[in-house]
């Protein structure tokens, strides 16, 4: 009788101890690891000075080989304005003939004539819709007059991408200009070869084949 009771008390005691240990273990596991002192956030100083956002200015080569060879055996080079000085501007030109001087250029930009953008008073320049001359490098301004939504997005950082810093307090940012991505004469993006697809490694299953 006595021994039985002793056994029951012992078993109960053991059960309580085990359960207690179990609870402690579980509680320990559930405890959120805590951050010591100041490791939670970055302690780097913030500055109020903003770095610059720079848009690339393209350098446009104005000199072109005329196709003739000079007395020194070198190809003769002329700028746009030099050669066009003796030519009567053609305000109706909307395409490039396959035999003309500018043959080989691909043109497909709406129904616009060449002189919508190029300045017939000075072929080294572009011009605004209002007729004021623009440097050949300032195509950003040229394009933005007609494509106001893309320009707004570009200014907001939502069209045209960027590199450098999202946070201008910590560094500058570089932007490409419209003609880095769009050929002004054929602005639609041409198809490109995709980088190779992923390969499956041992044990991996195709995510699409998994039941979600």
């Amino acid at each position, binding site marked *: 009788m006595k021994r039985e009771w002793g056994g029951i008390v012992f078993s109960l005691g053991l059960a309580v101890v085990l359960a207690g240990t179990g609870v402690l273990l579980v509680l320990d596991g559930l405890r959120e690891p805590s951050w010591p002192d100041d490791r939670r956030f970055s302690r780097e100083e913030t500055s109020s000075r903003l770095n610059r956002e720079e848009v690339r200015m393209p350098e446009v080569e104005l000199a072109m080989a005329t196709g003739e060879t000079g007395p020194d055996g070198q190809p003769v080079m002329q700028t746009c304005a030099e050669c066009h000085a003796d030519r009567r501007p053609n305000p109706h030109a909307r395409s490039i003939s396959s035999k003309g001087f500018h043959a080989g250029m691909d043109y497909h930009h709406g129904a616009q004539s060449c002189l919508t953008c190029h300045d017939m008073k000075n072929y080294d320049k572009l011009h605004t819709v209002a007729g004021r001359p623009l440097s050949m490098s300032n195509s950003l301004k040229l394009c933005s007059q007609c494509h106001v939504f893309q320009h707004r997005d570009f200014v907001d950082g939502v*069209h045209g991408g960027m590199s450098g810093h999202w946070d201008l307090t910590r560094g500058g940012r570089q932007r490409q200009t419209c003609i880095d991505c769009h050929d002004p004469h054929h602005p639609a993006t041409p198809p490109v070869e995709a980088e190779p697809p992923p390969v499956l490694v041992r044990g991996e299953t195709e995510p699409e084949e998994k039941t979600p």
Partner: protein
Amino acid sequence: MKPVCACHAKPGAISRRTALKGAGAMLGAAAFAKALAPLANWAREELTVEEFVQKHYRELDAEGLKQVLARHERSALEDYGAEVTIGDHRPREGVVFGYALNLGVCIGCRKCVEACHRENNHDRPGRGSYIRVLEMEKGSMDLEKGNARYEGLVPREGRFYLPVQCHQCEHPPCVDVCPVEATWREDDGIVVVDYDWCIGCRYCEAACPYHARKFNWRKPAIPKDEINPDQSYLGNRIRPAGVIEKCHFCLHRTREGRLPACLEACPTGARVFGNLLDPSSAVRKVIDHRRVYVLKEELGLKPNFFYFFD
């Protein structure tokens, strides 16, 4: 040589199972679960005593952390011959990161996939990356129907391209299922993995509705001169085999104010990144002024990754 059990372990190395026999009673439930991980014993290489007793990342003090980082830098040198710097990049107060992607201009070129592959020290033969690009039928937004294996010239007629990476959810189901708290959401919204604490149980991988988590089946093979030496503990440091990894919004860059590698690599400018708490940021311009889409919105996970069409 990977020992399959403790009795084959090299001297000085200790498997979680051996350690458990002696020290089991002193360890918390988390460590207990960690020791029982089914895959840890074969996929992960054996741990040294130092590694085994390492505290949880969040509980390390400055000195302890320094030692851990130094140890990982040493092993990068020993295993890969590469001199790397492993930093501890922490969030800033007042910053929550958001990403928006313009599906109207994405052409599916996979330049982002490639940039991630290089930036984040992924296994070269496995072509690992945290981004998958799905080729989708126009009109469908069901990512289970996307094709990730397309090749050749893009974009194709009648298709659009949906790049998918970790959505850094506000209510991440992957975090909830982790039995050992090896993954959590940080104050800037980035969901991180402590590769030293992960036991490779893959519950989180199954829990992610975007299939954005990946199991590291083998130790990454990367030629020495291709290793990105600019690394972070919770970010792009070279992961051991047998742990889970995922996109961390390039925290080694973004927490220093820089843009993520995938964004810089995008030739179309489809990717927009920034601080959701700053109303003048590019990403807020998208969210405030556009109609934005969230994948599998009905799940209520509140991702910080948004899609829009021009």
